[in-house]
């Protein structure tokens, strides 16, 4: 019987291997600590996690100030790919990185599925 941590890790591994466009994923606490990750080698997990928490909080507040309702995603587009943040319950965030050719609709669908599974585990 896998531990909870192993199960969380497995959700991320499945996400990254089963969906062609995903290059990495992490589950981060809302105060910026990494809970589990499958990220490219050489990534500074601690920095990435802290920044994910900051981005999420800025996204929430912006959404509130600009009356866009409850935050659903934070989306960052770079020249070589995307970063998408989606909340998992009230205490964690799923962060996924995808390549430049990613089909965003698929990315979001897979992330929604993963967040539902993660919410049960966390």
């Amino acid at each position, binding site marked *: 019987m896998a531990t909870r941590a192993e199960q969380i890790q497995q959700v991320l591994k499945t996400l990254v291997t089963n969906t062609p466009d995903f290059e990495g994923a992490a589950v981060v606490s809302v105060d*910026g600590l990494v809970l589990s990750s499958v990220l490219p080698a050489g990534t500074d997990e601690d*920095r990435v*996690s*802290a920044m994910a928490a*900051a981005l999420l*909080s*800025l996204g929430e*507040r912006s959404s509130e100030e600009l009356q866009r309702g409850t935050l659903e995603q934070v989306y960052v587009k770079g020249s070589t790919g995307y970063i998408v943040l989606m909340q998992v319950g009230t205490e964690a965030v799923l962060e996924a990185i995808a390549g430049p050719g990613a089909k965003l609709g698929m990315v979001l669908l897979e992330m929604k599925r993963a967040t539902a599974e993660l919410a049960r585990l966390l």
Partner: protein
Amino acid sequence: MIVAKVVVVGRAEAGKSTLVNALTARAMNLAVRGRTVAMDHGLLERGADALALVGLPGQKRFAPVRDVLVSGARGALFVHPAGEAYDPATVALLGGHALRNVPYLVFVNRREATPAGVAEESPPGLRPPKAILSGDLAQPGPILRDLQEATWRLLDL
């Protein structure tokens, strides 16, 4: 009109968010369980002008967020808990690329009973502060007004 940005720096739990909330109007804190994860923001108003006070997150892992927030700051308020050694990470930030030519003042945060009348020295290894103020943010009194005025003077405004 916002005339300048002033950053509020110091170690985690020094009192930065408390200071931003006490000194400014319409203060906002992006925090989780009392710990700042992104920033604090408030406007220090004087007539039609305002200074944007931006409180930094203090915990070590938020260094990249601090690096973004200090850019363009014209002044800094260093919140320093009374009785401690100056926080090395904050001293390094004030001596670093973004802030080294920026004037700063030290606010010695005296919570509960710390010896009064003990003069605080300047942070070692750093250019001296323009001023050192001291007080308890929780106690009503002239300290808030003194700090507000000192912040405007910091920028020669």
